[in-house]
């Protein structure tokens, strides 16, 4: 079956994503990651406009407290990413539905110890543009909790330490930086 680069041709009653080339699927995956981010962001903004930032933040925390484990579970089941070490978490972070929207570097010291630096975060860019300082709540409170939830999905003893969090210095390349560590009794 011929692979399609796009859907400019005639209507296909049996259309499915399987018809697309791999390049097109990858473009769609990236665009879906951005769409995921926008669904979450638009909900936050709609609640903030209706009920204020405290309400929006409270809902955001409830939503992600529930969904973070689901995110890790789906990603690890689909891609067979299993284990209880830091490197397993890093693999899930590389592959989860959000990953295409963000850029991060990983310094893997060993399987139980890594430093992860986010160097592009469209959410932080939007918050910085917004200028109302919402990153103080979202990055400093919520994200710390969410990184722990992700880590603890794989190992409840994984220690998450934020090394750098917004607000960032002018011209700083790093949006946030985290140390992930498991200490084992040998």
């Amino acid at each position: 079956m011929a692979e399609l680069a796009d859907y400019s041709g005639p209507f296909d009653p049996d259309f499915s994503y399987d018809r697309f080339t791999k390049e097109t699927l990858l473009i769609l995956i990236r665009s879906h990651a951005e769409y995921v981010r926008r669904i979450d962001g638009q909900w936050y903004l709609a609640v903030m406009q209706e009920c204020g930032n405290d309400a929006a933040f409270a809902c955001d925390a409830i939503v992600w407290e529930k969904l973070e484990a689901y995110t890790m579970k789906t990603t690890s089941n689909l891609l067979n990413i299993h284990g209880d070490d830091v490197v397993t978490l890093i693999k899930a972070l590389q592959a989860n539905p959000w990953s295409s929207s963000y850029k991060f570097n990983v310094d893997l010291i060993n399987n139980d110890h890594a430093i992860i630096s986010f160097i592009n975060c469209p959410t932080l860019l939007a918050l910085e543009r917004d200028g109302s300082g919402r990153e103080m709540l979202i990055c400093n409170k919520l994200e710390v909790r969410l990184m722990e939830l992700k880590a603890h999905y794989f190992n409840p003893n994984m220690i998450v330490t934020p090394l750098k969090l917004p607000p960032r210095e002018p011209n700083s390349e790093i949006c946030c930086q985290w140390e992930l560590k498991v200490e084992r009794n040998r």
Partner: protein
Amino acid sequence: MKGLIADYSGAFDPTFSHGKLAQKTLAKLMKATSEYMRRIDGHWYLSVMEKWGNDEALDCDIKVWERLVTYEMKMLSSLLNIHGDDVVTVMKALQASPWTLTYACDIDVRNNDEAIVTYRNCPTLLALEKEGKGREGLICQELEPRLMAKIAHYFNPSIEVVALKIPPRSGNEDICCQWEFKLNR
């Protein structure tokens, strides 16, 4: 293609990207992502509803989706080169929508300016029916017609969208909803 992986059970790859995954795996991931979108949306709705009630949640839902439907149509039409002002163009966009991966729908294109869309399976409706509070009365009867019209009007503001069948439905065997899209030239 050489070296594509079916999953990520192997060693950590510092240069991992989705491009290293086999096409079948990518298709599975896309399906999972569309279910993920539905859950994000659903959890936001529920968290607002639990704190401030259903009216507030519905107001937010309307605001969110009136903005996002246009974003989605713009994204799909530009990424997949879906352009035109007829009903069949709208049908192509509906087929390509990430949401369609979580729903089962039949599209009967009568001609380029007329089509009937029938949703046979809708996990959102199933969840609403299971909840039993009758919220489908608002979501399916008020919000969805607005969103269907918004989708159609992105391509042509003169396309008419008529809900032929809408919940509540007679039973589990019944279709979820059915829509007529028509353009009179």
